[in-house]
Structure formats: C-alpha cells, structure tokens
C-alpha cells in the first residue's frame, strides 16, 4: 500500500501538470496567470508534504518531548508564497495595461493587431 503513503505527491504532480498545461495551452492572459498560480501552489504542497514527520505535531514548544514536523519547509514556502503573490500582482497589472493598450486580453487577437500594424 505504498501509493497511499505517496498520496500527497500524486496530488502535487497532478496539480503541477494541470497548472503547466493551462499556462501553455490557454490564450487568455488572465487564465495563464491562474494556471501559473496552480503550478506554483503545487510546489508549495510539495514542500509542505516533505516537512511532515510521522506522528509529528506542529513545531511549537510543548511540555515534555514531542515529535514535531520539520518547520524549515514551512518557512521557505512562506517566502515562496510572498514571491508568488508579487508575481501574480505584477502579472495582473501588466494584463490591465495590455487591455488598455490593445483592448483585449486574448493572445491571438493581440497577435492579429500586431500583424496588421
């Protein structure tokens, strides 16, 4: 029953590929950013999953000796989440400016306008 133990990782790679597919396949600039977010979230899950220690509690001070999960991946991912939020904000800001400049957020329509120009 090894695969149940790797359940998290299956979810991670399903999300990772879903997000990646959305980024590559969609022509809508907003949807691309949504896909990028799913892709990044899967990596957060990957890190959080590896920090888990069997029977471990939250990494806080408790009386007596307790087994606790590895807190370092949590901290790393906190940083990565901040980066991801900044990227999303910048990406969406760019989409707003693109919409103002081209009047559309569809990749193929933007390309048509470029070819006409």
């Amino acid at each position: 029953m090894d695969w149940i133990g790797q359940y998290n990782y299956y979810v991670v790679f399903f999300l990772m590929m879903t997000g990646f597919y959305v980024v590559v396949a969609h022509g809508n600039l907003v949807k691309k950013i949504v896909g990028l977010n799913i892709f990044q979230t899967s990596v957060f899950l990957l890190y959080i999953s590896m920090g888990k220690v069997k029977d471990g509690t939250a990494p806080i001070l408790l009386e007596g000796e307790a087994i606790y999960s590895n807190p370092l991946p949590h901290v790393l991912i906190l940083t990565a989440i901040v980066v991801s939020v900044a990227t999303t904000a910048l990406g969406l800001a760019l989409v707003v400016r693109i919409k103002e400049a081209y009047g559309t957020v569809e990749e193929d329509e933007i390309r048509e306008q470029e070819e006409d120009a």
Partner: protein
Amino acid sequence: MIAENLPALLVVLPLLGAPLCLLLGRGRWTWALATLISWALLAISIALLWQVRDGAELHYAFGDWEPPWGIDYVVDRLAAYVLLIVSLIGAVVMPYAGRSIATELAPRLQPVFFTLMLLCLAGLLGIVITGDAFNLFVLLEISSLATYALISLGGDRRALTAAYQYLIMGTIGATFYLIGIGLLYMLTGTLNMADLSVRITELAGSSTLHTAFAFITVGLALKLAMFPLHLWLPNAYGFAPSVVSAFLAATATKVALYAMIRFIYSVFGAEFTFTEMHTQVLLLPLAVAGVLIGSVVAAFQHGVKRMHAYSSLAQIGYMLIGIGLMSVTGLTAALLHLFNHALIKGALFLAIGALFYRLRDSRLPALSGIARQMPWTMGAFVAGGLSLIGVPGTVGFVSKWYLILAAVENGWWPVVVLVIVASLIAVVYIGRVIETAYFGQRPKDAVPVTEAPLALLIPTWLLVATNFYFGIETDLTVDIAVDVAAGLIGTSGGGGS
C-alpha cells in the same frame, strides 16, 4: 568594521537605496543617489576581488548563524570575477541612464526606474554571492520581478506583451528551480551549496537526484535563454528602454549562466553532470543550434536592437559550447566570454541607445547616413561591432580564440568551423548596420540631428575602451578564468568548496 561586512553591503546597499530613490522623488537627486550607490558597489567588488586574488575564500554568515544552518555568503575568485563585471556594467549604465531616460520616460516614472534598477542590481549581485540554494531563488525572483517591470517601461505597447511573456516564462523557470531545490532538500536535508555538494556524492544513482538536476538545469536554462527556451529574449531586449536593454543584455543572462556553472561544477560536480547525466549530449547540439539560428536570424532583422538580441542568443550559445566541451580550456573560454560578452553587448547597446536618444528610432532605415551627423556614436558602434566579430586586439577575439583552442584540443573540428562561420555571419549583420549608417543617404525630409551628448558618449566609450584594454592586456581576465576553471573541474565529485 566595514571591511568585514563588504559581502553583505553588496546586497544591502542597493536594497536600502531602492526605497530611498522612490522617496526622493523626481529630480536629479534620485539619479545622483543611484549613481553613487552603483559606484560604491563597483568599489566593493574591486575590494573583494583584491582580497581573494590569491585563491582565498571569504565567508560571511548572516546574523552570525553558522553555515550550514544560516545563510552563507561566499566570495571566491569566480564569484568576485562575476561580481566585478555586474557592478562594472551597473556603474557605467547608471550615469548614462539619467540623460537617456529623461527623454524616454515620463518624469513621474523616473524615480521608479532607478528604484527598479537598484533592486535588479541587488538581486543579480546577490545571486552571485550567495552560498545558499534557496536564497538564490529569492534573489533570482527579486531581480526578475524588477526586470519585468523595467521592460514594461518601454515606450512601445509591445513592451507590455514582451514583459508579460517574460514574466510567464521566467516564473516557470524559477518554479522549476524551486522544485529542483525541494527535491534536493528532501534527499539531503540541507540548502547550503557546499554542504549539498558533499552529501550529493553519497547519493549516486538516485533517481530523485536525477530529477532534481533536470529541474534545476532546465529552470536556469530558461533564465539564461538557452536555445530553444529563448523566446522571451528578443522582444524583451527589443522593446525595453535603451538603458534597460544595455543593462540586461550585459548582466542578466550572464548571472543565470553563472548560477548554472555553480550548480554543474560546484554542487553536482562535473563527473555527475557529464558521466552520469550525459548533459553534454543535450547541451552541445542545443548550443550549436543556438549559435547558428541566433546568428542567421540576427542577419535578417530590421530593428538594430532586435538584431543584437538575437546575436546575444548566439553568444550565449558560445558560452554553453564552452561548458559542453567538458575541458578546462572549454570552461575557461565560457568564463572569458561571460566577462567579454558583457563588455561587448554593453558597449553596443549603449551606442544604440545614444542613436535612439537623437533619432527616436533604432530601425535600420532610420539610421541611413547617420554616421556623418553622429560620428562618435557610430564610431563606438563600429568598435563594439569589431569586438563582437572577434577582430584581434579586442576582447571578442580572446574568448573565441580560447573556444577554438578548446575545440581543437578535443579534436572537434566541426565546432571550430561553426565558430568561424558564426563570426562571418556576425560580419554580415554588423556590416549591414555600418553600410547603412556610413554609405546610405540621409532622407531628404529627415530632421538634422547633432552628435549625442557627452553624458551618453562618455559611458559608451568607457565600455568600448575596456573592450580594447582587456583585448590587449589579457593577463587579468585570462589568469583568473584559467585558475577558476581548473579549480572548478578539479573539485568535481569531491568536497566542493
């Protein structure tokens, strides 16, 4: 006090300067502050290179947390060498920027521009100096986010789509890198590069390690614009403000390449990379394709900036060929070209920026006959172009010479032919610009222009002069590159730092 904190100051100084620039607001003070900081960074880099010149290694433990727990900043000769080139370009570009963006950007955007430049500089210098794999990711994203915003400042609306495209591809690259680091952490429980390199040797044959290697190299390859992952590059360089193109073309891809060299040689070790993973089987054909396609496409471009963006793609190919040759001479050539190409492309893009300053256009037809009105600017362009082609006496010759030596050493004659053919194609595209500018006629309805101001010419000619100085006085760069390359290959598979 200051002397021992130099490695930290290199990142902290621009990080602190960035918000200050925003607070100072419009006017020349922002420019003065940014210039001052960039000069201070150059001085620090020179001081660091001086301290490690005989092979010593400086360590700086942030907050006194001992490595491998804390974040460790490491300055060895390779790092100091790349720090020097990045801060040199920063120090030359920053004074140039004041005059150049005054015409290209709205006044309210000018403090934002300097803020972003300093953030980008902080990120790039940090990537070079950090000894912590996760810290590298954070700094990579700091520099990248600043870069996306800088590109979107370009006047054309296509700058926006270029920035967006780069944002998507850059984020995918950085996330790939993050996945790779996650897998490495899973295997080894450490993020410190020196510590990683020790523990990785015990894991030979692990498929997770192979996956981690693949994710990290592909992620960094996206950032350094290795063919065919370069799609973001031509538009990004083509539509960004002139100063930004010069700064990015000279530094951003080089720093990503440095990170790749660090991972290939210091962390994973050359033996793992080339005998277990057979990276050269993929790296070399792609690098060769990059050189050929980049050069040929460059020859057909109408925009001079886009032309040199594609030419950058070819130059990155040369550096990757150097790595793919798997020898000390090959790596020496890659490192030399990393340094030299920054000087060449910096000078060329600054000259193009000076043309754009007067003409408001950098497409080929607009340049027709311009050499009579702007002789000094075109002179700088020609000098930079000669260096790009690789005429003896310039830096371009030095790195190509070593690349050919390395290829001959391996007996790989097709590579030798390739380098020569690609240089001849460079003659074609540089020649097209020169022909138009020197032998073309100014259009009758063209507004007469005068020579670019000294504020733009002096930094440009300064970089041109370094092209010739390091092309003739090769001791400094070649000695460092040879020693560093020998050190990197010598430590492969072993104790790392």
